[in-house]
Structures are given as structure tokens and as C-alpha cells.
């Protein structure tokens, strides 16, 4: 790790009823890093992200943003503190226009002054959001909606961007666009925590990738492991 931790999760436990979905989870994301979190269906990846943004309560443990605990805060407070989540299934507002979706992204922004400059590079990164500005968001294709969802999260000017399976159900060319964008996003100073099912691509892209099964982190992989398919498969099986 080469930077100050921006996001730290310590000994996190999350339960649904009596069933633990996340167990003694610890992870650290340094400033300017891209960190991956992979694992099979039901491993607890989304639950981890939901706990970070305050959508589900933690049973115990701690979550810190720039050293200060955000545990137990409301989702809107955490969003305004600088964490943006691109949720699984995109969750764009289908009946609103593309522009209105982007304007909603501005709500969490604390310093409103340089919004235009940010909007500039975000539209450059995802030209579709500029092109289809006035369109109803629900009429966009799945790939375009995913780009809108990421753009909407970015206009908030977050310190940390959390993405929950952004490549799910997308055509290969769009997957390339999304993965390519993450590098640009990092270069803009945004720290990235990427939850994915595309294990190999994630390991290759991220500075570090945690492998999660059954609510626990089993292993940490580096880009050097990207071609070691057997090791990745073994990590998935270790449950």
C-alpha cells in the first residue's frame, strides 16, 4: 500500500436476522488506489458495500473514512461525506431525464463551485450522458444506463467510489469502456473499491483484490496473480 488509508473497515460483522452475511471483515483502501473485491454469488460483497454506505447496520466492528468513524451514520450523511455507491443493477431513475439523474448526483456535493469543471471531464469520459441529456433515462440501453449511473456517482465529487458489479449483463465492448474508465477515474484522484464477478479482469486492474467467500475474506491477490487462473479458482473454492 502506497498511500494514506482513505477507507478502512475493521472486524466488520453484518447479520440479516441471526444469519451472519459478513464476518470479521477487514479491508483498507489507500488514497488513489483501485481495490477489488471478488467472490461467488452470495459471498457478502454487496452487503459489505451496503454496510459501508449505511444501508445496513453493522453488528460490530468499525468503518472509517479518512480516519473518522462513519459507523451508524445515515446513507445521505455518508454520501455527503464523500462516498458514492454505484449500486448493483444501476438504479437510475428511469422516469427522469439523463440530466435530472445527473443533477441528483450534485445533491451530495459539498463544494458546489467546481461542479462545471468536473462535469466536463465526466462527460468526456462518458459522452453518452451528454449526447442523451434530454432523454428519459429509462430509454437508454443497459450499457448507457451503467455509464449514467457511474457519471451520476462521480458528479457528487466523491473521495471514494464504490461500484457493485458494474459489468453485470453488459456487452464485451461496454465492459471495456467501464473498466477503462476506472483508470481515468483514479487519475482524477478518486479512490475506487470495485466489486466484481469478472475475477481475472479485476485482479489485473486493481492494485489489490480481496477474495471473499461465505462472508469472509480468504485471500488477497495482486496483478501478478492475474494470469494464475488456478490460484483464483482455488481462492473461490476455499469455502
Amino acid at each position, binding site marked *: 500500500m502506497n498511500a494514506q488509508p482513505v477507507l478502512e473497515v475493521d472486524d466488520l460483522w453484518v447479520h440479516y436476522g441471526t444469519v451472519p452475511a459478513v464476518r470479521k471483515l477487514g479491508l483498507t483502501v489507500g488514497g488513489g488506489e483501485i481495490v477489488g473485491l471478488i467472490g461467488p454469488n452470495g459471498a457478502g460483497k454487496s452487503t459489505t458495500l451496503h454496510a459501508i454506505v449505511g444501508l445496513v447496520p453493522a453488528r460490530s466492528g468499525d468503518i472509517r473514512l479518512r480516519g473518522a468513524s462513519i459507523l451508524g451514520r*445515515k446513507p445521505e450523511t455518508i454520501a455527503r461525506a464523500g462516498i458514492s455507491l454505484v449500486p448493483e443493477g444501476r438504479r437510475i431513475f428511469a422516469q427522469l431525464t439523463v440530466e435530472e439523474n445527473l*443533477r441528483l448526483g450534485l445533491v451530495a456535493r459539498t463544494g458546489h463551485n467546481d461542479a462545471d469543471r468536473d462535469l466536463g471531464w465526466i462527460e468526456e469520459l462518458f459522452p453518452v450522458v451528454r449526447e442523451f441529456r434530454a432523454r428519459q433515462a429509462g430509454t437508454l440501453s443497459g450499457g448507457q444506463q451503467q455509464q449514467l449511473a457511474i457519471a451520476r456517482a462521480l458528479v457528487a465529487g466523491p473521495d471514494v467510489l464504490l461500484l457493485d458489479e458494474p459489468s453485470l449483463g453488459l456487452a464485451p465492448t461496454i465492459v471495456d469502456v467501464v473498466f477503462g474508465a476506472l483508470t481515468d477515474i483514479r487519475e482524477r484522484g478518486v479512490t475506487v473499491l470495485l466489486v466484481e464477478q469478472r475475477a481475472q479482469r479485476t485482479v489485473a486492474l486493481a492494485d489489490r483484490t480481496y477474495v471473499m467467500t461465505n462472508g469472509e475474506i480468504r485471500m488477497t491477490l495482486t496483478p501478478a496473480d492475474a494470469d494464475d487462473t488456478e490460484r483464483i479458482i482455488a481462492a473461490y473454492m476455499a469455502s
Partner: protein
Amino acid sequence: MNHVQALIDAIGEGAVFALIAVGIGLVFGVLRLINFAYGQLIMVAAYALAFPGNWPDAASIGLAVLAAVVASLVMERIAFRPLRTADPSTMLVATFAIAYLLQNGALLQYTYRQQGGLGDSIGTLSGLNQAVTIGSLHIRWVTFLAIGAGLVSLGGLALILTRTSIGLQMRAASMDFRTARLLGVKADTVIMAAVAISGVLAAVAAVVLSISSTSVNPTTGFQETIFVLVGVVAGGIDRLVSATLGAFAIGFAIELVGTELPNSGATPFTSNVYMPSVIYLAVIVVLLLRPAGLFARRGQRTVERV
């Protein structure tokens, strides 16, 4: 020509119902809660109109708006907020309880005041009960006020919802509250905004209703709200526009049927005594044919709560 007059009166009644529907629908949008106590907000505003006796009209209307907004916000703070994550049926029962509480509170004050009748007269804008004569039509000014107030209020609300940031946030919260919060939309703020606006609309409805009835009593607003809820459900509560159209249709129908039918008749369907039954029957038929509501879009999914 008589029919034209009935038609205009019916539009006036529909406009008032539409206002009430929007007040209920706005809160439903953000809370997934049907506020059965909405009629009592109208009652509170009407009592505020009756209260100062000899104030200028503008001042007593101002007081009525203030009273309805405060009552609405207090309701949200002490009842809806603690129950926000509760079962929808719990919230529903809570609004029933508040409705009864307010109604009986209004009743109780007559005991203390030792007044004979259960009512207070309202003189606000009473001049508007006079009719203008256009050809063979006699239309009361209050009918124009009802239509005008409906248009202005709904137009103003439409501007707030489409042109302001809080309006956009309210719309987003109505569609998907969880995602809206993830974007930094403050739950308490949008809910309080919706609740406050619904209070303003209750006051506007109270002014129009009070001019016609020239009085207020503990049941003021009750009957209208029940009819509006029927219209809202028939129209489709999931969208503000369809709910409003549904309520307008009910108000329009009730007024039209009421004036076109005699007060007592030899056979059931020629008497407006049976009108509520006829209306309910129509609603049942509508809901059987189109469960999502008369004006709802097809294939629409219901949205989750907070």
C-alpha cells in the same frame, strides 16, 4: 343551459378534490403512507379561519395556512417519523388514531366553551358566495375561486417539482427512496417538504370549502377526504397525476350526480341519497377491471418504502 351550469359547478368541486388528492398523494409518494387524518388538517385550517372573528381576510387565511402547516409538521414529527420503518398497516392505524384524536379534540372544546351548537361560523371571503349571471347561468364566485385556486396551486406545485432541487429530490425519493438517499437526498428534509406543502394545500381546500359552507364543525373535511381517497385509489395512487385525475373525476361526478338527481326519489337510482353507493359501486367496477387504477400506466411496478 342548466346542464352547463351543473358542469361548471362540477368542475369547481373536482378542483377542490384534486387539491386534497395532491396533498395526500405527495405524502404518499415519499412515505408510502395514506394519511387518513388529512381531512382533520382541513378542519384545523377551517377552525383557524373561524378563530379571529374580525381579522381581515388575508390575515385569517394566513393564519389558516400556518395552522395547517404546523399541524401537518407536528403530525409527521410525533407520529409518522417514529413509525417510518413500521408496517404500512401500523402507520395506517396511526393516521386513523390521529384523525379521531383531532376530531374529538374539536368536539371537546365545545364542552369547555359551553356553546350550544357544534359549529363556528366563518365569514372569510363570504362575498364570494354571490353569483355572477352570464346569460342564463348563475355561477357563484367561489366556484371560480375553486377552479382558480386549483389551477394555481397545482401549477405552482408542478413548478416546484420540476424546476427546483428540492422538487427533483422529492420526485426521486418517491420513485426510489433508497437510491435517492445514496445520492445524498436527506430523508427528513424531503419528507418535511412534502408534509409542509400538503399542509398548504389543506389550507387552500379549507378556504374554498369554508366559503361555501360558511361554518366549521368537527366533521369538516371528513367526508371530502373519504371521497377523495376513493378517487385516488380508483385513479391509481402510485402516480400523483393519476391520483389527482381520479379525485377530480369523483368530485366532478358527485357534484354532477347530486345536482342532476332530485334529493328524494321513488326509486333508488333517481335519488342522490344513494349517490355514495353508486359511486362506490363504480369504483369497485373500476378496480376489478383495472386493479392499478383507472389512470395508471400499464405494467407499472409499485415502489418500495424507505
